[in-house]
């Protein structure tokens, strides 16, 4: 997995490439923890190049969402591939995350 970080209009945009699973979820966890601790709490995760997610990855998103909600920030996901979208749907996660088709739409909403 590769994670690209970018600041756009004071919002943090993370782009995940590859697989988010049991073996590497802690990398993403550390990035979330680092930015939330600096009160950078408007975060968009662009998943257009993420082609696999397991329950470990889902839990990391969940943990980040809870922390950011508690800090009154915004946590959006965008660009989910069809198969990933299906996993979110099966898990019920589509009901608690704000998910956008693409980064542009997410950026419009977050600002």
């Amino acid at each position: 997995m590769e994670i690209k970080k970018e600041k756009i209009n004071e919002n943090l945009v993370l782009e995940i490439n590859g697989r988010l699973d049991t073996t590497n979820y802690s990398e993403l966890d550390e990035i979330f923890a680092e930015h939330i601790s600096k009160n950078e709490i408007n975060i968009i995760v662009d998943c257009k190049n993420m082609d696999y997610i397991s329950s470990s990855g889902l839990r990391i998103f969940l943990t980040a969402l809870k922390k950011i909600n508690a800090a009154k920030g915004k946590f959006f996901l965008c660009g989910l591939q069809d198969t990933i979208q299906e996993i979110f749907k099966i898990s019920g996660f589509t009901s608690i995350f704000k998910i956008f088709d693409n980064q542009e739409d997410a950026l419009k909403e977050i600002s």
Partner: protein
Amino acid sequence: MEIPKNKILLTLPNKLKYITLTQSLVREMATIMGYVKSEILKLELAVEEAAKNIIEHSFAPGEETTFDIIIEPHIAGIIIQFKDKGFPFDPTEIPDYNPKIKSNILEAKGLGTFLIKQLVDEVTYLNLGKNGKEIVLFKYLNKKSIKDIISKFEIEKAEEDKKTQARTPVGFEKFKVRRMTPDEAIAVSKCAYTTYGLTYVHEDIYFPERIREMNIKGELISYVAINDNNEIMGHIALEIEVRDTDFPQLGMAFVNPKFQGHGCMKSMNTKMIEDAVMGNFYGIYARGVTTHPFSQKVIGKFGFQDTAIFLSSGVSREYKGIREDETRRESVVIMANYLHPSNEMIIYPPKEHINIIKKVYNNLGLNPKFSDSIPKEVMEKNQSIIKVNIDNVNHIAIINVIEYGKDVLYEIKKSLNDFCHKRYETIYLNLKLRDPLTAKYSSEFEKMNFFFSGIMPGSDNNDELVLQYLNNYIADYDKVMIDSDFGKELKEYIKSQDPQTKNNLKKKENGN
């Protein structure tokens, strides 16, 4: 460990970082087998969750060991088996995850196991006592279904024929019955589609490649009735099941409506049974639907006798042309025909059901030796061996007691509570009749509100007593249509054993 040639064994250290090795192997195998990308992802995900559960929950902290993963390509799909010798697994301790409940999502407890069950078609848990435990995943390979192959013209023609009830005049069609050849699999699937649409209970019939390959490998023995124009008029098959390869199930029996009334079904049944006798099968059994008695009537003509009624065993299917309004759960009657019965059968039935069990065997023309005392040499082990099959399509769970241990009541009670909590509609408990401890424990299971269902036939003294538990489902016995007189008696007996009936009787007696 001896692994058959068509299986792959991977022994993996109990470290999370090695899970990707298993996934790579499963991915490559699934690709070779022809799974599409989205299905491969689901398989990989189920594999990760299962392996992660083992690594995180099966071993003591810091323990360095290995566990085995066996990958088996099968005609109908892929089987992935996880075997470890760690702590016993208790499926009932996994929290129930419901994606419709927000608090469940936010806690995410049990999410991994929930995903496994959603992403594969079958999950089986098996505790092997001191030999560890197994989790087996199965996922169907959905190659092209007949609905992707059949032309629009053929669909329209079949629908038109059905509307106009177009039938060839009786006596006009000459036909012969023989084994299906592999290249006739497509025509058989088309015939099934023409007869039932896509509502037939056994979905393999709609996948010509599965039918072809299962026949080649001897997992299905198909017979067809074929006319002079080489049209498939009907089909019937013996399904060789893993549970008992010597006592196959009669199934996939249908005749194109256009050719009904010509005696195809009778000829196919006769030929199949003749071959089964020659093939030294112990017997054949069938699952007759109870929405209507027609198929039971046909099967009954070939020496099949009723042995059990499985109430609420599946979601109702709409049989085209036969009571299409039905939406309730389906019950089935088990019908058996023992072709080569053993004269040395010794069974240990519970004494409270001995009369009805004797009647079942009398009706079958069998005379097993009934024993009511537990031999002194029978020793109970500490740990039971219990196999659990979960069918998420029909929302049923099947608990098989392979070997009784001192913990059997505790284990069954725990599994039952779990399945009830998870809203499985019916829970079946299969008990070996050759095991003397069945006589001892059956009444204890009935105190948990399991009740008599009947006898599941098996080869070589492998018959099972089946008890059933209806989870908040009230059986409407009037709608369970049974054809034979004995079957009707069996139904009345089952009804009398149903805790619901007993409660109603008590209320009546108390004047409430």
